[in-house]
């Protein structure tokens, strides 16, 4: 739907490798630092950016992302500041797709129409809203599609073949396959199970299928990327940020650099993914 998203996946296809999709929490640990992290991601090898919107009650997230959200909220982050972050990033990068990810309530309270308008002007390409399943499409998905913003849906191991068509119906941009039943930050599942699931979903859609949950290292990224069109890394990045902070939770001297280093490693993983697959 948005040119940035389609162009990026088309280019990756031509290149013959999966996308590296990196998640971080907007405003963690503060606005300026997270803007610098965001700016550093494409250069380190991120192909798509997932921009986390902090929420007080992240029901599907493990401790790493829960704490990132709490740090951001404590630092004064709000939904309008997260939009502002994207806008600032866009001043220097008009190619990397940005997907905002979070929970519905802050958007609902902001106002759906106003949020979508502001997201478009901030250069947002897609939305992932954890607590809006297809049964709730009238809330945000349909209005977003009408305005030209991708609505990226999560498919999970509990999404069986009967349910998949409903889940895929209004999905656009890409499909995010959550590789296990559980919260973010859990252990990596068996890559062979993941490739079976990806193929099952591909039987139902032409959209790129990206896989997340549990990917932490370049090796993981390579293994998961062998079957998927994209690999999502979240908790590992967020944990890297947490580990770089000072005792009182402020940005440390190498917060941005340490994220870059981690992402550079992950980028080598996705670049090696298909080589292994071809062996």
């Amino acid at each position, binding site marked *: 739907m948005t040119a940035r998203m389609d162009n990026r996946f088309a280019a990756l296809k031509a290149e013959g490798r999966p996308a590296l999709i990196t998640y971080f929490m907007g405003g963690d640990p503060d606005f300026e630092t997270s803007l610098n992290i965001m700016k550093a991601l494409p250069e380190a090898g991120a192909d798509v950016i997932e921009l986390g919107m902090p929420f*007080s009650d992240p029901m599907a997230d493990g401790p790493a992302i829960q704490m990132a959200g709490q740090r951001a909220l404590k630092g004064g982050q709000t939904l309008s500041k997260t939009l502002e972050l994207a806008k600032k990033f866009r001043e220097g990068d008009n190619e990397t797709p940005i997907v905002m990810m979070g929970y519905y309530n802050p958007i*609902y309270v902001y106002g759906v129409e106003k949020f979508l308008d502001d997201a478009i002007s901030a250069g947002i390409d897609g939305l992932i809203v954890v607590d809006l399943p297809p049964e709730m499409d009238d809330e945000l998905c349909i209005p977003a599609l009408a305005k030209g913003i991708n609505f990226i849906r999560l*498919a999970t191991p509990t999404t069986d073949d009967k349910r998949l068509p409903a889940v895929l119906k209004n999905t656009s941009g890409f499909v995010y396959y959550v590789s296990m*039943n*559980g919260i973010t930050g859990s252990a990596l599942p068996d890559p062979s199970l993941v490739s079976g699931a990806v193929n099952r979903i591909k039987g139902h859609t032409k959209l790129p299928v990206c896989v997340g949950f549990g990917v932490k290292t370049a090796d993981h990224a390579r293994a998961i990327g062998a079957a998927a069109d994209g690999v999502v890394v979240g908790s590992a990045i967020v944990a890297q940020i947490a580990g770089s902070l000072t005792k009182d939770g402020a940005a440390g001297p190498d917060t941005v650099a340490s994220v870059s280093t981690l992402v550079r490693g992950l980028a080598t993983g996705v670049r090696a993914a298909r080589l292994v697959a071809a062996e």
Partner: protein
Amino acid sequence: MNQTPQPNSFRSGPDEDGRFGIFGGRFVAETLMPLILDLQGEWEKAKTDAAFQKELADLGAHYIGRPSPLYFAERLTAYLGGAKIYFKREELNHTGSHKINNCIGQILLAKRMGKTRIIAETGAGQHGVASATVAARFGFPCVVYMGATDVERQAPNVFRMKLLGAEVRPVTAGNGTLKDAMNEALRDWVTNVDDTYYLIGTAAGPHPYPEMVRDFQAVIGTEAREQILEAEGRLPDVVIAAVGGGSNAIGIFHPFLDDQGVKIVGVEAGGRGLQGEEHCASITAGSPGVLHGNRTYLLQDHDGQILEGHSISAGLDYPGIGPEHSWLHSIGRVEYVPIMDQEALDAFQVLTRLEGIIPALEPSHALAEVIKRAPKMGKDEIILMNLSGRGDKDIFTVGKILGMEL
């Protein structure tokens, strides 16, 4: 209320998507969606299954001790000098509160669905105790999530749960109260989808929980309606209950909703006052939002972040309210009012001394509203109050506040 068009019946909700007007719904992660659809299917079947209903009724009679008595509070009535006051004595149920009505119903569903593990969240610990009890009775392992703050202030119930064989997992996120326990229970459920049944303790959460819990608790109002007709030959003028998530309240309200002459009042926790953030009056001082699977009134800031709230009573310490209450408020059928910590404490002592009944701090809020209203009503008028639980669990909290040596 004003021009809001009134429905033919106030008892027909929710619609098939779980909506009560704009409230309710199914705002859950995709992982959970197939599970709540399964549960809904099973619940639809159980509703009309005579064998299920019979088992429920038998356990109600012989395990819970239903019907619970309707009691005319003679001395309290004389003391207040106005309306006649009746209590629906849910505090006499097995385990000491109304929570067991819902737990028996849901454990039978869990059994039908072939689940092998029970999880629950709890605030006051009454739902945790009731869950641990039915888990013991039906032979399920049970994990109860409880905010760390509540573990401390409801210590007797923590001990009871452990005796019953449940594992109590303290939750330290947030303020360590009911909302945080519910988040953690949802995280457990998302992780253990195959074998686990999530036994929600109040009329909230995603559809079908608000409807299902209401239906299991409606036995309170159904019995009370018959009992008051028998005792007085007429319906009460006012029905009053305390509202945390809203299960005891909807349970007694629902059978009276279409009785036009019956005024219905829900009592929210006013905590230390509505000016700041130290209360749990979601309807009186909150606004609509989406949390824990449904749209409802919430305590939240301008950015949609949920506030922690405060109440002296752990069972009312929740920043939301069941979606059906939000709807009943929006159409003006039920009036919601706040009662402060201190008023509830005073009411607790009044009842203890005048009637020899130690109420839980939750229904003490409803009682404080009764104490306000009764003197202004005629002696021929009737108030029915849901005495949802007994106060054994609260004696240490109250003792500490009153400065008594324990």
